């Protein structure tokens, strides 16, 4: 069974700062990893995903994530955040033929 953990429940940064949101997973086989964003009162929206190839994947709105097999991680990064990036971010993991399992989420607050 695949598991995913997001160690930071809350992250606060100033507008223009860089940010890294952490995601760690547990699974021994081929794995699919995704990040989603959820603004208050809305459903989740897809940001990016990784399965194979270049471990750094680019997503929408300037987000990128890097896969590390050695660290079992898939951290999300953005070089310069905007106040509109304030939201809850979810990491998701799945294996072939299984559904996506979500972490507990990290609430990002960007202070103007």
């Amino acid at each position, binding site marked *: 069974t695949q598991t995913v953990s997001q160690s930071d429940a809350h992250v606060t940064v100033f507008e223009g700062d860089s940010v890294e949101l952490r995601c760690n997973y547990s699974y021994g086989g081929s794995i699919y990893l995704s990040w989603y964003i959820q603004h208050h009162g809305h*459903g989740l929206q897809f940001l990016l*995903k990784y399965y194979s190839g270049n471990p750094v994947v680019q997503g929408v709105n300037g987000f990128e994530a890097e896969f590390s097999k050695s660290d079992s991680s898939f951290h999300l990064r953005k070089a310069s955040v905007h106040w509109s990036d304030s939201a809850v971010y979810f990491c998701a993991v799945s294996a072939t*033929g*299984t559904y996506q399992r979500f972490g507990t989420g990290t609430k990002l607050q960007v202070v103007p």
Partner: protein
Amino acid sequence: EAGVTQSPRYAVLQEGQAVSFWCDPISGHDTLYWYQQPRDQGPQLLVYFRDEAVIDNSQLPSDRFSAVRPKGTNSTLKIQSAKQGDTATYLCASSLVGGSQNTLYFGAGTRLSVL
């Protein structure tokens, strides 16, 4: 292209009452998911379908919850006798061609409060 549509947006019930949630996925998407999201937690799968077939309902409380997707398009999730512990947002998502690697498209959710 229309997104995933859910209704109602909100529901407030007394314990023991029944409620149904409805989901219209993106046209052509063969896989439909129902997730339960308690407040300040991540979504947790209840059930998912490929076309009209249930693929996994192992986490659906079968004594009170049921879900159908009779024509492989729209889906209904029903709670027969709601409990306070069912208070959560119920999210519907769809994807194309199935498979865990595919992107999930979510609806806005139905926020349920059981008093």
